[in-house]
């Protein structure tokens, strides 16, 4: 565990638009994310959680404040390929097989051992049998697993996930959550996870960051303090329900401010 | 609005660039004495300004100014084209309504609808005129039919796509209201199809003018632009600028018709700002 945080934000702000159409998506964000953490960002629509994720990933530039990723500017971190990202839509390329999709970032980085890496990634997400299939032949959950394999293909130290299971049904979602935790513990990646589901945030994370809207800001930080590995039993424990209630009440408080 | 002016401006700029290329080619090729691929002499490649000036010269000794003659011919051709446009549009629309109602009809007839467009209309044109004569049609009506032949296809294909475009859930909603097929058609499918229909109408506008011109050629009757194109083509050696000038006017006629349709579209489809101009090209065939 290193001293410096993987993600460090100080008074970070983001405004979209000009003049009368200005929207302040984020204001005064102070956040430290340490290596190995699993942090969830949760809040109502418009609280800026996805925006914050995109700022970290240098997909959108900040308007004010400071932000460093791995001690560098977000842009440098992106150019150095320090992170992998998974979106709500798997966004697999239709014309590539599953294997080729996972190899995509490796091609761009000109990695030599592409096919081996891709194969081991597919093994990790347990989709080796579908290596030669095309995206349209897979179900939604499987497509997301491929997307995750792709994001981890180049072994980044940081994994960003933007409501990746939002489009899946409840049972698949629970299985995928289990998957992500397993991968997290195997690869020791730092994860920043955006969600609007309180149970999901609590189940997965070490820490839940509660946000509220208009303007987007952080209103609470809650340590989940539930033991790992988290299983089906965790979902039925009293501590789990108590944490969910704690987060829910924090959200309601934030809403009223 | 500024994007529209930008389009006009870029159109003007590109036109000037092309004129510059034309004149530049003439200049350089004449200096160097080259004759391939096109001779730079004033018959094969008249100066652009000569083409324009020719419009203000008499058609023949003691005749009207070329531009007036061509204007009259343009109206004549446009009338036929417009009629063909309307006939073809209605027929295409009717066909697509039929196809959306009955999959069997669609599967039976669609291949032939597509194949119909592979038959060179210019070859059928003389026969259509003969048939029209048999049925005592005035010649302009036969030409309109030929024009309609080219027009109905884009309308049929695009309207069909548009009629099929509503979400299945929207259809389920109508079903839950126990709506009759006619109501589903006019309250849901046709409104959804409007953007597609207008895209097709723009393609059809051009097609109808082409059809009218083609129809005029074999009929050999003297009142439209087609005849002028044919005559001046034969007189190319004597005075080529006439043909070039006519081509410019013909081009303008096509552009004007499409512009009118576009303006009607803008008025009718108040909402929706998709770039249908770009969809122009995809309208002409299936898939």
């Amino acid at each position, binding site marked *: 565990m290193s001293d410096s945080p993987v993600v460090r934000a100080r008074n970070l702000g983001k405004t979209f638009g000009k003049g009368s159409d200005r929207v302040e998506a984020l204001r005064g964000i102070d956040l430290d994310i340490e290596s190995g953490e699993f942090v969830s960002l949760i809040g109502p629509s418009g609280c800026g959680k996805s925006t914050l994720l995109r700022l970290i990933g240098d997909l959108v530039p900040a308007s004010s404040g400071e932000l460093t990723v791995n001690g560098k500017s977000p842009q440098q971190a992106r150019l150095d390929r320090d992170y992998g990202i998974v979106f709500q839509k798997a966004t697999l390329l239709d014309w590539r097989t599953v294997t080729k999709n996972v190899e995509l970032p490796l091609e761009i980085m000109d990695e030599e051992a592409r096919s081996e890496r891709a194969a081991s990634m597919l093994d990790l997400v347990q989709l080796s049998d579908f290596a030669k299939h095309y995206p349209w032949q897979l179900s939604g959950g499987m497509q997301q697993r491929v997307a995750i394999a792709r994001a981890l293909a180049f072994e980044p130290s940081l994994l960003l996930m933007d409501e990746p299971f939002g489009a899946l049904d409840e049972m698949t979602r629970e299985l995928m959550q289990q998957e992500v935790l397993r991968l997290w513990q195997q690869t020791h990646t730092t994860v920043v996870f955006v969600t609007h589901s309180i149970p999901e945030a609590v189940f997965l994370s070490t820490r839940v960051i509660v946000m509220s809207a208009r303007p987007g800001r952080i209103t609470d930080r809650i340590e989940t303090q539930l033991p790992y590995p988290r299983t089906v039993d965790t979902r039925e424990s009293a501590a789990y329900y108590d944490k969910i209630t704690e987060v829910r009440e924090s959200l309601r408080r934030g809403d009223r401010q | 609005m500024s994007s529209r002016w930008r389009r006009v401006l870029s159109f003007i700029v*590109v036109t000037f660039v092309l004129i510059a290329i034309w004149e530049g080619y003439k200049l350089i090729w004449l200096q160097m004495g080259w004759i391939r691929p096109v001779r730079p002499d004033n018959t094969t490649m008249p100066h652009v300004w000569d083409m324009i000036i020719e419009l203000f010269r008499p058609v023949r000794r003691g005749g009207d100014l070329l531009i007036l003659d061509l204007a009259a011919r343009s109206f004549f051709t446009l009338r036929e084209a417009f009629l063909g446009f309307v006939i073809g549009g209605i027929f295409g629309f009717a066909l697509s309504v039929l196809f959306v109602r009955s999959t069997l009809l669609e599967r039976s007839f669609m291949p032939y609808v597509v194949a119909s467009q592979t038959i060179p209309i210019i070859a059928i044109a003389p026969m259509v005129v003969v048939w029209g004569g048999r049925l005592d049609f005035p010649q302009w009506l036969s030409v309109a039919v030929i024009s309609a032949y080219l027009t109905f296809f884009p309308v049929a294909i695009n309207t069909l796509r548009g009629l099929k475009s509503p979400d299945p859930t929207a259809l389920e909603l109508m079903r839950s209201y126990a709506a009759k097929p006619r109501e589903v058609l006019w309250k849901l499918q046709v409104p959804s199809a409007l953007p597609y229909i207008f895209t097709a109408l723009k393609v059809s506008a051009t097609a109808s003018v082409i059809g009218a011109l083609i129809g005029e050629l074999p009929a050999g009757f003297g009142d439209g632009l087609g005849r002028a194109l044919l005559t001046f083509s034969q007189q190319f050696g004597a005075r080529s600028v006439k043909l070039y000038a006519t081509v410019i006017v013909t081009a303008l006629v096509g552009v004007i018709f499409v512009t009118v349709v576009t303006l009607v579209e803008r008025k009718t489809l108040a909402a929706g700002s998709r770039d249908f101009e770009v969809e122009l*090209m995809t309208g002409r065939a299936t898939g």
Partner: protein
Amino acid sequence: MTDAKPAAREATRTSELRHRLRKHVPAAVLFVLGLVAWEGLIRAFDVESFVLPAPSEIGSRLVDQWSVIMSAAGNTMIEVIGGLTAGVVLGVTVALISVRWEAAREGILPFAIATNAMPIIALAPIANNMFPVTSPVSKMTVVAIVVFFPVMINTVRGLTEVGTGELELMRSFAATPRELFTKVRIPSALPYFFSALKVASTLSIIAAIVAEYFGGPQDVLGQYIIAKANLFVFPDAWAAILVASAIGIAFYGIILGAERLVMSWHVSLRATEAG
């Protein structure tokens, strides 16, 4: 929600075949019925051949004139293929340029759209006069211009219609603009390109014949048809027309085949859906 089942795919393949047959049977039945009705009506009403010849008469004339028509068709095909190639190559090149340089696109696209509104038929007499009228080049020029616009516009559209999801993904990989171009834009432009190719294939044959009408060597389809029509020998003309039409359909079919080969992954060509 299902996962892909290798065993079940065998079963779906036979049902896919049955489905395909069911799609094509009505049209095939109509074809046969149509032919029979055509022949029957002509005979029943004793229609003269110069109004509309019977299929049997057209058939016999086709056999009789086979070598002449085939020779003419061959020459027309040279014009078509030449013009098609030129138009497609030019269209794709200009499309690639105008996507790379935004400024070029602003200028070229509206011009292309406006120009496409012009009746191409007006170009035929000019092309015939610029180039020697008996040379296939004059017809190839007309074909190339007619083909150029749908190809260019569709290719541009395909290259630029990349979703934000894909753009963000490539950005997260720190991909260069060129990598974005080769790995994402070009593959996603393929469906549009093929769509344009289908339009171009049928247009090119019509354009060649129209151009031939304005003048050309005798041994081309356009001139053959017009010559026969002027002599009121309509069955021969029809035979040639049907040959031209058959060529057009064949072209379309070739492109459909190529599309299926290259783009087996595309929505419109998938046999069955999963999940």
